[in-house]
């Protein structure tokens, strides 16, 4: 299946991708209270990458990622592990959730828990995995030895 991005696909992608990314970020943040969360958010962001890949190929995905996929994975794991041992550092249990209250004026009062940070780690790992898959398995012919 040779990917031949048409103009239509490209235009579609150009409008779709930002939307998908915003929705994915939204799902990540609201996950604690309504359907969503790190997995769903990460997978949706992965879906956005898929769209990018289909329209622009590997190069487009690479240019869109700020860092290599391996670093995203590492950062995700580190974030999650850091929140996990955060509890230990503060003399509590492993993975004990902490909380930070933010009063943001007319935006309302938000409480950012370590659970959200943890979910960000999850999000990053999922994104890292999907981008690895796309970069490695997508369009394999390009890399014939």
């Amino acid at each position, binding site marked *: 299946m040779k990917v031949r991005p048409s103009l239509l696909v490209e235009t579609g992608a150009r409008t779709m991708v930002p939307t998908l990314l915003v929705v994915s970020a939204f799902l990540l943040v609201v996950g604690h209270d309504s359907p969503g969360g790190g997995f769903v958010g990460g997978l949706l962001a992965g879906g956005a990458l898929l769209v990018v890949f289909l329209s622009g190929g590997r190069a487009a995905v690479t240019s869109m990622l700020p860092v290599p996929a391996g670093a995203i*994975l590492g950062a995700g794991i580190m974030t999650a*592990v850091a929140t996990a041992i955060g*509890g*230990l550092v503060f003399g*509590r*249990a492993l993975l004990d959730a902490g909380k930070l209250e933010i009063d943001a004026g007319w935006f309302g009062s938000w409480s950012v828990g370590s659970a959200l940070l943890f979910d960000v780690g999850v999000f990053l790992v999922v994104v890292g995995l999907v981008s690895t898959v796309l970069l490695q398995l997508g369009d394999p012919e390009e890399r014939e030895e």
Partner: protein
Amino acid sequence: MTTVVSLLVAVPLVAVGLALVLPSLALRRAVSMAASLASLVLSVIVLVSVDGGDAISVAVGGWTAPIGIQLVADRFAGLMLAVSSTALFGVLAYAVGQRDTDDAFPAFHATYHALAAGVALAFLTGDLFTLFVAFEIMLTASYVLITHRSEAAQVRSTMTYVVVGLVASGLFLIGIGLAYAATGTVNLIEMADRLGDVDSGTRAGIGWLFFMVFGIKAAIFPLFFWLPDSYPTAVTPVTAIFAGLLTKVGVYAIVRTQTLLFPSDGPSTFILIIAGLTMVIGVLGAIAQGDIKRILSFHIISQIGYMIMGLGFFTVAGLAAAIVFIVHQVIVKTVMFLVGGLVETSSGTGRLRDVSGVLHRYPVIAVLFLPAALSLAGLPPFSGFVGKLALVQAGFSAGQWIVVGVSLFASILTLFSMTKIWAGAFWGSPTTNLTRRPGRAMVAATGGLVAVSLFIAFAGQPLLEVATRAAQDLLTGGAVTIGGS
């Protein structure tokens, strides 16, 4: 102490993260070795602590069980952690000493510590689903490690290995579903309690399903076929740590679930039959092989039979013997594969047909091989003898003459195949392919583990005592309660 137990899971995970982001190999090596050493020290601290007092229970996230996940370090888990982190450290030292393993595969250290994290979590978790997750971490890491060289042989063997592993995972998940359906909990202690209300048929069905599912991982008869086809194709450090640890995690899971969830009040004939067949078919497989690593792979299976036999007696003595045997096997099996690797390094082959006379060219390899091989064959005064004698005595006390006779028969066959390696590879005129002197670091790492195996024999009595207390905990289920620490 709860912090220390938590760290046993956290340290390897931190190492995974660091190994993924650190840019240079030297840094990765340093972090990796440091993390492995830290785990070793921590696990010994935990073992000493739980043996001296009560089991340690950690409510992860501050949520007491059954709301949150409970980590439980009792004597059995403590012993397994201590011995497995020793093996993990030794093999890591060997791999770093070998240089080409992690040089050719930059993510080796991340994957290796993921494996270590999975193993530690499997030993510590008091939660059935977390056990599943632990298995998945460990297995996925093992899938990656075994493909390491991704040549045709690895890919082919990895297929068998991965597919069988995934089938087992699927069945495990179904088992969890059934257990949750019947009891409404995944916390092991809570489940043990509630299984009392479940009718005997359902309990037996779920119990045997878990036995068989873990049996695939533990490589018991007739579920072991995948093992000898896949293990030998990996690079030496990978095969060695698989051989030392992975099947034993399966055995651990069997022992844990069978004693806690599905206790039997007398010897289990079915388990003993499985044990006997595993010993004999495994060792016959070893005799049929002509390659060092394949011979050793079949021995893994055969020796699993001994452990299962100890469980099958369902007595304190039997279980204690099984635990001692597991502890000894983790080290000795790891060492044997490392020595096999040294032979391969020196000659470029592990085929007995193609290499001989190692004793004359590189006597140090022979000196490392002998105590390990004799230990494997259960000869005194080496570590295997302690476990074997304990098993034989326990079997006779339980009146199980036949299976004990079978185990003695299997052990002479084990000796036979050890002499096959010795006479084939070490004796004889040195072959011309013996040209590469194995590196000092590799020899030192192997030697260190040989020393540990000798130490296990030397400290056989304290080990037996700890194992007996661990077995009492397991059979009376008294040591751990929900939420307690």
